[in-house]
């Protein structure tokens, strides 16, 4: 029986955005407690998250930098989808980007390392 090794990587990166991923509250470090928080962060009834544009740009830029394929329409669809499903779906999106990266470059690299071992 022969086995094929497939390794997935999930990377969590803190992005250098001025505001949070789903709200306009500041991400500044060292502020007084409970000041960098707004209605959305509190999860009050009736609030809706708005995704940070800059975070998306950064994700796309990263994708382009490592030669991943950026799917224009599916990101828009995923965005719409995400607003319904919120956080769970963001993870889905990041996974999708990560997966593309892995399939194109990282796996090649890992296989190469594996062969060396």
């Amino acid at each position: 029986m022969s086995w094929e090794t497939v390794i997935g990587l999930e990377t969590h990166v803190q992005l250098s955005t001025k505001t949070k991923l789903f709200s306009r509250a500041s991400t500044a470090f060292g502020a007084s407690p409970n000041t960098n928080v707004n209605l959305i962060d509190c999860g009050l009834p009736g609030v809706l998250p708005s995704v940070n544009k800059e975070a998306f740009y950064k994700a796309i830029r990263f994708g382009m930098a490592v030669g991943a394929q950026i799917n224009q329409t599916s990101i828009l669809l995923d965005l719409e989808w995400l607003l319904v499903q919120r956080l769970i779906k963001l993870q889905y999106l990041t996974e999708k980007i990560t997966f593309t990266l892995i399939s194109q470059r990282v796996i090649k690299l890992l296989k190469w390392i594996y062969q060396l071992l």
Partner: protein
Amino acid sequence: MSIQFKSIADLREMLDDKSISASELIQESLELAKKYKELNCFVTMNEEFSVKKANAIDVNKKTSSRLSGIPLAQKDLFCTEGLRTTCSSKILSNFIPPYTATAVKKLEDAGSITIGKTNMDEFAMGSSNETSFFGNVHNPWKKGYVPGGSSGGSAAAVAAGIVPAATGTDTGGSIRQPAAHCGITGLKPTYGRISRWGMIAFASSLDQAGPLARTAEDCAILLNTMSGHDAKDTTSLNSNVPDFLENINQPIDGLKIGLIKEFNLSDLDSQVQARFEESKKAYEKLGAQFIEVSLPNISASVPTYYSIAPAECSSNLSRFDGVRFGHRAESTDDLNDLYIKSRSEGFGDEVKRRILIGTYALSAGYYDAYYKKAQQVRRLIKNDFDNAFQSVDALMTPTSPNTAFKFGSKGTQNPVELYLEDLFTISSNLAGLPAISIPHGQVNSLPVGLQLIGNFLREDQLLNAAHIFQKNSDYHLAKPNLGDF
């Protein structure tokens, strides 16, 4: 002169020719609300603030806006700053929001006055207003009968003439069905036409705010103000908002109306069917043409809806845990116990049922079988509508299969019985299309509604068709006899 049963257009005239002041108008409206307290339309009144705002309007004498000084009622699902917002649930019975929903804010900025928050089915889950923590709302036409739901309090308040119009929300028929049962006009706009910011979410991909009023003209006035893009709701549409009032009087000569082949109307109550035939004739007389169209997947609407809506509800309602706001259970052992007890005490049976169904439908292993499958069927239904609108301008159906029913007579043994109430209304939510319900007569002295479904963003066409119908008939002028209340 009494202000009861007056439309916004009537009241505007009275305010402009100074036959009544804003303060007098608000005072009378508040008194009517007290007089008909037994209807149970309102959960919370906004008396002090309303009187203050009306006085300020009288002093400023600024009446540039059509809505300036007009009393309105808001469904108790729109957050209102400083005014209790309960969603008719025990879990939010002490919740005072620190902000106001965009739709309500726009109406208030235009000068209208929120006199109170209206009763509804708990978290908008229901078609009879019987799931409210604050008790049943009576149908103004007949004591002991449901007003429909979930915007039952709003519909009853307008039908009883307490306010000329009210806001509602529609996830599967919650504006149109109560409008039909109470003999008033209700419009569910295109998904995204009105911002959902501040509207306590039930099923995010189906929820849409809209107006309930005495006439299509008044619905147009409210829609003009409520519509538009909002940066705080990324699903709100960025498209141009036409002046709905301006185009309301066009002739409807040559308007093509589709009749859905799959809805077999011969199964309906013969009198409801007769009303429908009569209105069809009335439209033909006004120059409309009727064409039969087929929407092969529409029969799957109810099961599709009851897979998607509970799934989204279970996700949206997970925030109610007793920690940051709302009802919190006493004497709990640990954090998990606090969650369980707060939610068990705070939610009613129907809400619990839907959270359970939704959690099941989204759970690992069942997601693909239920939620994903339902989303695929939803797309097929949307495609059916797209095809139909290639050949027609609007579709016509009864709003509800029957008239209002007695408290407790439906769905107590089998909830599905009540779910079928939404048979004709649910598909337009799944497809995101606008739809209006207008009164068209009575059966056994209870009102019956006629529904028109329009193409994406074509509320103008619906309001036009509804207004022309109302100009040539007087069904919308019928008033309930409120002697029993």
